[in-house]
């Protein structure tokens, strides 16, 4: 029995202490996932806290035969997307990603990453979420479709568009950390 299994058993028995174990296990990955979508540390913390509370509320309906992670990350991603929508409506608490990233200025390679951060933050929400699931959580397209609640074709389309936009904007900037053109190409 893993720590995660034990924590879920505790929660299913109504022992709230199991939640602390789940938070310890998943908080970093969940926070980074939410940050990738929102580009804001405080918002990411709000979203992930809400996600764990949602787990607490819904743990009775969680089927133990299924994997916990896709179920949990579906909650995180959907809350992140919804949170962003609410934030846009109220124009509240907007703290763009570059505020965090803007401190790094000394190393060229780091500056390139900053540019990538800006490009990611400027992508449309659905494409950003798709890129985070694919490249940070390393999910395949089927899993992404489950988490995002959309068809696999839509996932492919969003990934394609997100990649193309990043590639276009970054190759226009002649970043030296991008793969160089092949000789003779």
């Amino acid at each position, binding site marked *: 029995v893993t720590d995660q299994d034990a924590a879920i058993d505790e929660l299913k028995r109504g022992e*709230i202490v199991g*939640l*602390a174990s789940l*938070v*310890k296990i998943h*908080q*970093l990955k969940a*926070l*980074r*996932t939410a*940050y*990738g979508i929102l580009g804001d*540390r405080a918002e990411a*913390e709000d979203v*992930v*806290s809400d996600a*764990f*509370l949602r787990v*607490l509320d819904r743990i009775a309906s969680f089927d133990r035969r299924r994997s916990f992670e896709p179920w949990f990350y579906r909650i995180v991603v*959907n809350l992140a*997307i919804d949170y962003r929508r609410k934030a*846009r409506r109220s124009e509240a608490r*907007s703290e*763009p*990603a*570059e505020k*965090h*990233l803007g401190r*790094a200025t000394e190393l060229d390679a780091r500056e390139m*990453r900053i540019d990538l*951060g800006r*490009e*990611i933050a*400027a992508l*449309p929400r*659905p494409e950003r979420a798709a890129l985070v699931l694919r*490249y*940070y959580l390393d999910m395949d397209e089927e899993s992404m479709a489950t988490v*995002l*609640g*959309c*068809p*696999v*074709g*839509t996932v*492919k*389309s969003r990934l*394609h568009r997100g*990649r193309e936009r*990043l*590639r276009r*904007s*970054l*190759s226009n900037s002649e970043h030296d950390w*991008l*793969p*160089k*053109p*092949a000789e003779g*190409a």
Partner: protein
Amino acid sequence: VDQSIAEGLVEYVEQGIRADTDIVEQVMRRAIDRHRPFRTRFRWTVVGAVAAAAFASAVAVAAATGNLSLKVGPSATTLARAEQAFGAHVFTARADSGAVLYAVYFWPATPRPANAEPGSQPARNEVELAYSYARSRVDVTEVLDPTTEALNVDALGPGGAKLKAAGGLGAVTIEAVNGSEYVVGRSVDGSVVEWIIWKSSTRVVVTTHFGPGLTHDLAFALAATFR
């Protein structure tokens, strides 16, 4: 490029959230504050279950009467609602094209981010249609172009620079079919069409993305039917 994006993305999120970040206390405080006796939670579970059953029945009735598209995800909607929100005619495949529409999405316009690059455009209202066609999924996105200018598509020229890890880009051509012009993107080996883009006389830019790619004839047998 995939690897570069992956590395850049990982570094981006790692810079944003440090490894020692800990929200256990924050979560537990909120959880304990709102912790309810089991009986109360049980009552809400029953209320929720009844509401869910009622909703499921309503969905089943609506689907049976043809008034509801298949709901997939939080932004799924009906074609009629999407068109209303979009504010312009939404182009759809002709009924006898063989394509089956199974989902409609609407993404509302979003303002240009404060950190957007100079010259970048805000996201506009976007309708997304998901079709099943010829053993392929076809994702159609429609966006209203505010200008009356000709369609402008970013593409790398066939003789231009290529990214070593990109696997290359397929040829992009402009083709006239039935008197209309389409921008056609092919696979790297040129064997299949992966996407087709065109702009209607009503300024709607329609992008069809085929996954997997289709033969030229099959792709246009669908794309040319959009009205």
